[in-house]
């Protein structure tokens, strides 16, 4: 296990192994998303209450899951970077942040789109969407902070600290917002909390979630690889690589 962690210290090793893994994740992502979307959008039964508009959950829910788990991953990478000084961890965290922000945005947008037929309005301050909005701001903060430092090491460490502070706050924020929402709104139908979703509905959902995750991993690996090349551009193995490809 320590040998594995030591290997991780080497961007070169990461570059090599990600090259082998990448195609699998692309294939998985494409396949799962294709199957999931077709099944969910075309073949799953319509919801008895909302009709066809509920199908947006096949985009909204995976995006929301990812938005939250990416932030957690970012914080974990930040911790790994601060404690063990593994540069690859920081590169991965840096590449994940914009993707996480994008996922949060997709989740907000799909939530809003869902709102139109459900509530008749483009925006509703319900607990879920409000928490997502706050999460979006947290992402923007991490991205902005990382970009504000001249020294890369300082930028990485600052972003790691902020990500860790943020991740501790996320459950607190969620709890507070849930509490706030139930206090101010009568108990109406919520976007979440599908009690007893039948299998024909949650299986395609699961497939979509897995597909989104594969997509996320594939994109992160790809972006991390180019970041490795960029940061290590003065190392011999990178120059050899560039030379060899000519």
């Amino acid at each position, binding site marked *: 296990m320590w040998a594995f962690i030591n290997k991780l210290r080497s961007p070169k090793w990461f570059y090599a192994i990600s090259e082998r893994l990448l195609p699998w994740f692309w294939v998985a992502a494409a396949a799962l998303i294709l199957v999931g979307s077709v099944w969910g959008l075309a073949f799953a039964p319509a919801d008895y209450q909302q009709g066809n508009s509920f199908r947006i959950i096949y985009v909204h829910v995976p995006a929301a899951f990812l938005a939250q788990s990416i932030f957690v991953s970012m914080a974990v990478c930040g911790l790994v970077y601060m404690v063990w000084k593994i540069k690859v961890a920081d590169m991965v965290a840096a590449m994940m942040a914009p993707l996480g922000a994008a996922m949060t945005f997709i989740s907000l947008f799909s939530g809003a789109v869902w709102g139109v037929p459900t509530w008749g309005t483009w925006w509703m301050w319900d607990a879920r969407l409000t928490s997502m909005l706050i999460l979006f701001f947290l992402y923007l903060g991490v991205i902005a902070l990382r970009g504000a430092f*001249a*020294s890369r*090491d*300082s930028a990485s460490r600052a972003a790691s600290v902020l990500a860790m502070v943020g991740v501790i706050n996320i459950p607190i924020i969620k709890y507070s917002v849930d509490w706030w929402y139930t206090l101010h709104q009568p108990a109406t139908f919520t976007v979440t909390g599908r009690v007893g979703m039948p299998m024909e509905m949650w299986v395609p959902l699961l497939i979509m979630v897995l597909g989104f995750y594969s997509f996320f991993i594939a994109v992160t690996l790809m972006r991390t690889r180019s970041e490795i090349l960029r940061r290590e551009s003065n190392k011999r193995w990178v120059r050899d690589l560039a030379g060899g490809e000519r």
Partner: protein
Amino acid sequence: MTLRLQARGLACERDDRWLFEDLDLDIRGGEIVRVEGPNGSGKTTLLKILSGQLADYHGELFWNDRPMRQARQAFLENLLYLGHAPGVKAALTPLENLAWYQALAGEAVHEAPRLAALESVGLAGFEDVPAGQLSAGQQRRVALARLELTPRPLWVLDEPFTAIDRHGVAALEERLVVHARSGGCVLVTTHHELKASEELRHVRLGRGGQDAER
């Protein structure tokens, strides 16, 4: 009496430029080590690395033959660092400024030592003037008073002669020599040419190379 600050294989990169690479230093008690080099050659950065303020470097540091990671607390208790900026608050008087430094150094905040320290740097009579009303040289002297106020074996001084007049420069030079002769050690960067003495040693930075000459 073992006073030893060692650096092995020190390297630092800033803005895609290596300030110095593979730098070895061995600083012992009784020495005055002057770090010199053109502007931008990394003198201040080197001092900050050696005093533990910068974490972004390659290489190893040792204090009294122990790795700095383990010896950091002991190192800090023996270090007195004066940076580029004097660290003097304009709204406080020299006496009040020194009181804080006394407390930070873990000493009791007594007035007599502070008055004595201010007198020794030629600021007698200015103890209760807000530091913002003092000249730049006088503010620097308030910082230099810490050398008297909180005695420490290792002095790391970044451009301590800034804004000091000729008389003060001579006195400070002499003070450094006295400190080295009584067993302390001084690490200093300055553009000022220090008077030759047997304790003095040079480390030159710049253009990726460095040599130490005696």
